[in-house]
């Protein structure tokens, strides 16, 4: 089953605008990851934020994490047409099993128009 919900389900913006998508999860985590999925390509890891971090930046990406609310947000600044993709948050499950299977959210489909 999915870990949680992502909001919005779909987002349509113009190039140059910022895009914000949110993720809620259900269980305690030690990190949260964001992935991008383009049509015809596999999932690509974007950024990881640890549970003791509140904000992290990577290029045009900014991720926040609020463990008290069990939520995270991904901000893409100055969006480009090439950012058009589906974005998923994922949390590792099985902290004590020695491996980390990922539990994904439902995804946000982002469309950036030129």
């Amino acid at each position, binding site marked *: 089953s999915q870990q949680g919900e992502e909001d919005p389900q779909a987002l349509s913006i113009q190039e140059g605008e910022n895009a914000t998508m949110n993720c809620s999860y259900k269980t305690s985590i030690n*990190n949260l990851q964001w992935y991008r999925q383009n049509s015809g390509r*596999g999932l*690509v*890891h974007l950024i990881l934020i640890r549970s003791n971090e509140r904000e992290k930046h990577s290029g045009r990406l900014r991720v926040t994490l609020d463990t008290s609310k069990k939520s995270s947000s991904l901000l893409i600044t100055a969006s480009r047409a090439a950012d058009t993709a589906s974005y998923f948050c994922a949390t590792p*499950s099985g902290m004590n099993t020695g491996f980390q*299977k*990922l539990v994904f959210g*439902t995804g946000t489909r982002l469309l950036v128009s030129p």
Partner: protein
Amino acid sequence: GAGVSQSPRYKVAKRGQDVALRCDPISGHVSLFWYQQALGQGPEFLTYFQNEAQLDKSGLPSDRFFAERPEGSVSTLKIQRTQQEDSAVYLCASSLRTGHIAGGHNEQFFGPGTRLTVL
């Protein structure tokens, strides 16, 4: 290339047929995961291998699903007597090691997936 590869990229099967999906992980990667992604949904975990050992198969939907990794590298996901509800994209991912490294994580590298359509 150095990435995870999967074959075939597309598979159409008639209901009741058996299918086999192949995953070539990144060379030297210990961990291998299979995920199933239904249309419009996020991927869902199916099974996990550490080298040749299948340590977790809790996500396999039924006993029609079987996965193996006999030599600890290439893996095959087999679906017997396919049903329409098996239609999905099947993703394979590999990671270099297992578990946690000093509070970090082992990044999973995903293949492009196999899109299975069962008619």
